[in-house]
């Protein structure tokens, strides 16, 4: 997982509330067998409408998303996070997130910051005045800046630390590799192993 310290990239105003994970990525994309390549699934139904925000060339390479409250509610599909990440988003800011989505995001390196609703609205206005303007996210300082506006966002300490260190769950566990190896040395020798394969005949 890539470390997240400071990221600067195109700010995208998605001026809508209560976007569930079915809208972030429709169920048909769940049949795939890969873990990447979900960028085409992101907001798939909406992107078929010409005036959807990501169809505006100014926002096509969006990296920092600003949305209304209750983003990522609904089904637990991790694909919602993969779709945002594969499209190129590094951070999403909303007044409130769906719990499971937020948990999944933290594990995949997608920053989810909570900022008050009025601040989101001011940022939307600032972006609309200068479409294509960058947002700068500073995770050390817990701030996001768009033009003149700098907002402090909320993120829990544990997720923040993991993002700063670039640690996914596996990376985190592998820090304890010595403990795993030591445990393995203590396991009784009669415990089952699948290899070499044995069958009844």
């Amino acid at each position, binding site marked *: 997982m890539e470390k997240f310290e400071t990221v600067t990239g195109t700010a995208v105003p998605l001026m809508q509330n209560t976007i569930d994970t079915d809208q972030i990525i429709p169920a048909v994309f769940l*049949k795939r*067998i*890969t*873990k*990447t390549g979900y960028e085409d699934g992101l907001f798939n139904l909406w992107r078929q409408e010409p005036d959807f925000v990501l169809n505006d060339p100014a926002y096509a390479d969006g990296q920092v998303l600003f949305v209304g409250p209750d983003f990522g509610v609904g089904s637990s599909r*991790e694909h919602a996070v993969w779709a945002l990440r594969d499209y190129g988003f590094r951070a999403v800011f909303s007044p409130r997130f769906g719990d499971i989505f937020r948990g*999944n995001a933290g*594990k995949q390196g997608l920053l989810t910051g909570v900022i008050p609703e009025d601040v989101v609205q001011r940022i939307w206005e600032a972006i609309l005045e200068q479409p294509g303007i960058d947002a700068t996210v500073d995770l050390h300082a817990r701030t996001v800046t768009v033009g003149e506006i700098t907002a402090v966002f909320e993120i829990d300490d544990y997720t923040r630390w993991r993002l700063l260190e670039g640690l*996914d*769950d*596996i990376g*985190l*566990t*592998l820090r*304890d*590799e010595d*403990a*795993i190896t030591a*445990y*393995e040395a203590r*396991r*009784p*020798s*009669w*415990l*089952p*192993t*699948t*290899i070499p*394969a*044995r*069958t*009844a*005949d």
Partner: protein
Amino acid sequence: MPETAGAAAPRTLAEKIWDAHVVKKGEQGEPDLIYIDLHLVHEVTSPQAFDGLRQAGRGLRRLDLTIATEDHNTPTLAIDRPIADPTSRAQIDALRENAEEFGVRIHSLGDKEQGIVHVVGPQLGLTMPGVTVVCGDSHTSTHGAFGAMAFGIGTSEVEHVMATQTLPLKPFKTMAVTVDGTLREGVTAKDIILAVIAKIGIGGAQGHVIEYRGSAIRALGMDGRMTICNMSIEAGARAGMVAPDETTFEYVKGRPHAPQGADWDAAVAYWRTLPTDDGAEFDAEVVLDADALEPFVTWGTNPGQGVSLADAVPDPAHLIDPVEKSSAERALEYMDLAPGTRMKDIAVDAVFMGSCTNSRLEDLRAFASVIKGRKKAEGVRVMVVPGSARVRLEAEAEGIDKIVEAFGGEWRFAGCSMCLGMNPDQLAPGERCASTSNRNFEGRQGKGGRTHLVSPLVAAATAIRGTLSSPWDLDAPEPVEEHA
């Protein structure tokens, strides 16, 4: 579970296994790092995990603790022909390619050890007391029947186990479900678990590991214990388990991967220390009387919506809880049933005998014992799907295939089949099925299909009479005596 369990403190079976698998104790509310002894892999939940490993340039830490089989998508007819559905074929192909690339042992369609992942582990002797077992599948709880700690995990966790052979886990709560007494002939493990779920509800064991105890559980063979643990998830439990005893040891002994010689003695000595200590406390307790139990069936669209076969479809108007009431109303509409209808008057279009709940040899024997020498009811489609290719062979050696065919049933190849209809084995819209599987959710066995969960004995009697029935309802020649 207690944070620290001293040597003298009485512990439950679940706590003992947990304690024995802590690689690193979590501090301040962080999860414990738990070692995984056996990782079972199938085609549906593994492709993204393999892909994740590939991206990160990682491999599997312990190929020797990992085994894969194909089950959810496999056809049960013409298994030598290419799979027609492109999604199913892609998932199977991906598993084969991934197993090859990463070096994972795989049992593919056509192989003697292929079958439903939860049937394959125990049959190879890989599932044994005291181990931790995970799989990207909720019915992993099946393996708890051996006194193992076994639970389903998500795709990210599958990748985590592949890379590290561990999982960060928060301790579970414990629940004792005690079933004392003696089951009457014709009443089985399936009836016990359906009655337990009806009693505590589909969320009744949320966050808990259930330990099934009591004389009625002790009297069950391993196949029955697996049926019960399998459906723990349907009560919301993380896992279900039964303390290992002579029945367990007897089942494991001599299986391909069971310990041998001095190893066997060491293993059994350890396994004998596992049962819950006297005085150990559970966070919750439930009691069920086996003597009073009758064959049990579901009427609704969740596994908790069940009654005795002798009863009638309940009236939602009598339910007090508004959520239960509206869910019952919706269920009856979907099931096309009127309150007050006697369960025994409900006619079915199909009978499905299979799934990881009831597709082992004991289950097939029970089914065959009832249908032997009889003909199925006219117009009822009867599908019998063994849980694994080996179970199929063993059943054929006993002539069960012939009994099924003479009865008018279809004898199929192994897999999940109509349990979830990912392959072509599906109900047509509106069709009603008596099924030995574990989930009666809307559309589970095919879009618009209606499922009644039943035991193999009830499935057999229903196939004979065409309406929901138990062997008690059959005329002579009676394989089972008449009971009051």
